[in-house]
């Protein structure tokens, strides 16, 4: 599914190397977690994969089902099935949540050469998905993320994910700013989307999210590289010992 090889990335405006050779394979249907201390390059990886401006890829490759991601515009990557749940979902004043989603769904369908979804079908679809995430009709009408609580914003990201049905989902610190109940709700939403043809890359600083979204593989990222890979037990190890040991190993 997602294949990253020797990815090196620097900031466009500064001479600062952030990713220093990332190698990562996420097979279809699997959930991989990336953990790591602040500043390790986790969020940068999610931005580079989704095509945000401001970064320059200096070496390496990233492909989704064999298709070169780095060559595509952000919207083309989205249409290819890549979805990023933002750490800080953006507010768009005046644009109703429903209008936003309908525009997005139809834009992707158009890009894939499919017919637009009719208003009636869309309504049915979104109401069903929203119900699962305990998102009420009012939240669907409000402007995108404007005045949403932290929990509402993250639930809204998962709603978008459910509506767009991507094959590769990247969750960037989705647990940040969530209380226990909200985290449970969001995790349930993600778990409901787990499927054979759909992979997840869950980026998180803490282990607690992984209690709810059980990963198949855990990677530790530090100083712009994946430095350790293991099973779910690796997350617990980090939880107990912190990142200090791993960083010390690197320095050794």
């Amino acid at each position: 599914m997602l294949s990253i090889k020797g990815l090196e990335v620097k900031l466009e405006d500064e001479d600062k190397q952030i990713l220093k050779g990332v190698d990562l394979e996420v097979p279809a249907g699997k959930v991989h977690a990336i953990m790591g201390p602040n500043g390790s390059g986790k969020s940068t990886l999610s931005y580079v994969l989704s095509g945000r401006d401001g970064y320059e890829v200096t070496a390496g490759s990233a492909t989704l089902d064999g298709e070169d991601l780095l060559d595509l515009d952000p919207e083309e990557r989205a249409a290819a099935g890549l979805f990023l749940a933002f750490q800080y979902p953006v507010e768009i004043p005046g644009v109703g949540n429903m209008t936003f989603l309908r525009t997005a769904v139809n834009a992707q369908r158009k890009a894939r050469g499919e017919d637009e979804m009719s208003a009636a079908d869309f309504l049915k679809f979104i109401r069903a998905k929203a119900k699962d995430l305990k998102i009420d009709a009012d939240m669907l009408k409000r402007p995108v993320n404007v005045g949403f609580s932290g929990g509402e914003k993250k639930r809204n990201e998962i709603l978008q994910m459910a509506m767009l049905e991507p094959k590769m989902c990247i969750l960037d610190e989705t647990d940040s700013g969530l209380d226990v109940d909200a985290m449970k709700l969001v995790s349930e939403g993600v778990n409901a989307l787990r499927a054979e043809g759909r992979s997840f890359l869950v980026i998180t600083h803490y282990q607690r999210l992984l209690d709810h979204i059980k990963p198949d593989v855990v990677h530790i990222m530090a100083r712009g590289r994946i430095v350790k890979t293991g099973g779910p037990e690796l997350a617990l190890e980090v939880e107990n010992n912190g990142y200090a040991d791993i960083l010390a190993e690197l320095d050794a």
Partner: protein
Amino acid sequence: MAGLDDLNVKEGVEEETVEAVKTLAGAYKYGWETEIEMEYAPKGVNPDIVRLISEKNEEPEWMTEWRLSAFERWEKLDEPSWALLNYPEIDFQDQYYYARPKSMEKKPESLDDVDPKLLETYKKLGIPLKEQMILAGVEGAEDMPAEGRKVAVDAVFDSVSVGTTFQAELKKAGVIFCSISEAIREHPELVKKYLGSVVPVSDNYYATLNSAVFSDGSFVYIPPNTRCPMELSTYFRINAENTGQFERTLIIADKGSYVSYLEGCTAPQRDTAQLHAAVVEIIIEEDAEVKYSTVQNWYPGDEEGKGGIYNFVTKRADCRGDRSKVMWTQVETGSAVTWKYPSCILRGAESQGEFYSIAITNNHQQADTGTKMVHLGRDTKSRIVSKGISAGKAQNTYRGLVSMHPKAKNSRNYTQCDSLLIGDKCGAHTVPYIEVKNNSSRVEHEATTSKVDEEQMFYCRQRGMDEEEAVALIVNGFAKEVLQALPMEFAMEAQQLVAISLEGSVG
């Protein structure tokens, strides 16, 4: 800007230019031309032309005199230069002031007699001149009613009104809706009483010129305590080349009445600029209410700023009666140059004026637009919401006046002016004038300027929208408060227009 200077280009070059305009400005949907035999008055303006227009409209002597005195005054006036607009000098003698399809020489008895070519033109513009229900679309929200609505249309083609729909049905309600030329003939007492009573002949350079040479336009009279049974609209189409359109609209809402009035405008794309100078007067008596909505989509010129309409318009509503109310809503996406300040005279006690505006300028378009709220009566209220959007190399100015007179005790105004910039070569300007001459009134003014946010763009694109879709969505959100003030199908048209007028503004 180029424009009028380009009349003398060599033939070969002109071909190329025309081709370039066609490919570059492909975004303008209404740029085609109707091939129809026209009759023109000789070029230029002078007392003979004024008399000729009056004669073509079979006007009474008092009207001809009114026009001639306006012309005499106009000759002594200078073109104003205070607006933040930059355009080549207009040669007022190098224009046609009257252009009428030959088939309109004998006035059609009914819509069935109208030249099929003209009917076809309006059909193509999406304005069928048939008495049928207009079906609401299903775009966007889930809350929209699906039932049909009736909208009566007065269709103005170059210098003449070609037909007005639903006249008989409106007449049953006592509503008069016809072309102004017909009103001058059929309802002289009303026209005499009200014409020029809101925008006097001496008002300003363009209004004075309009008073002398206006050829047609719409007339509306709503009798006391009558709610107009349908929306009324006028659709202005400029077709003829080198021809100015000077229309005049007069709306009278008698005591306790209500009407919603819509105005639409388009023109073919040409690489020479064309002049449009209209006057709209609205009289609102006690407890009456008028909503006036405009979607202005004149040809804006091409990407290089060649051609387009120069739009100099004077619109004013006089809230004469107590508790009278007016609401102006405008979506200005077209024209190369826009000079327009729909205003409210709040004369009656507790009268209210509202102004909602979206002005979008792209490429080389220039807009200097806003409103005047003149508070004369006690306890009057006004509200201004202006959203200016600039892209390309365009300049967009909000110019507004809020004036509280000594007798306008306890009056209030709220003004909000927001500007949105797309790219770094365009400009947004806000020029508010505030005069308060009593100490019990309150004036509030808020203004913001922002740029289309990169985070928002990335968010939209990550969800699958391309840059243009993303900009259109964000801008529609920015302008939402104003779009909501429009009647429904107008709001939809406006939303689509926002997207079309910003095409090519990113990337």
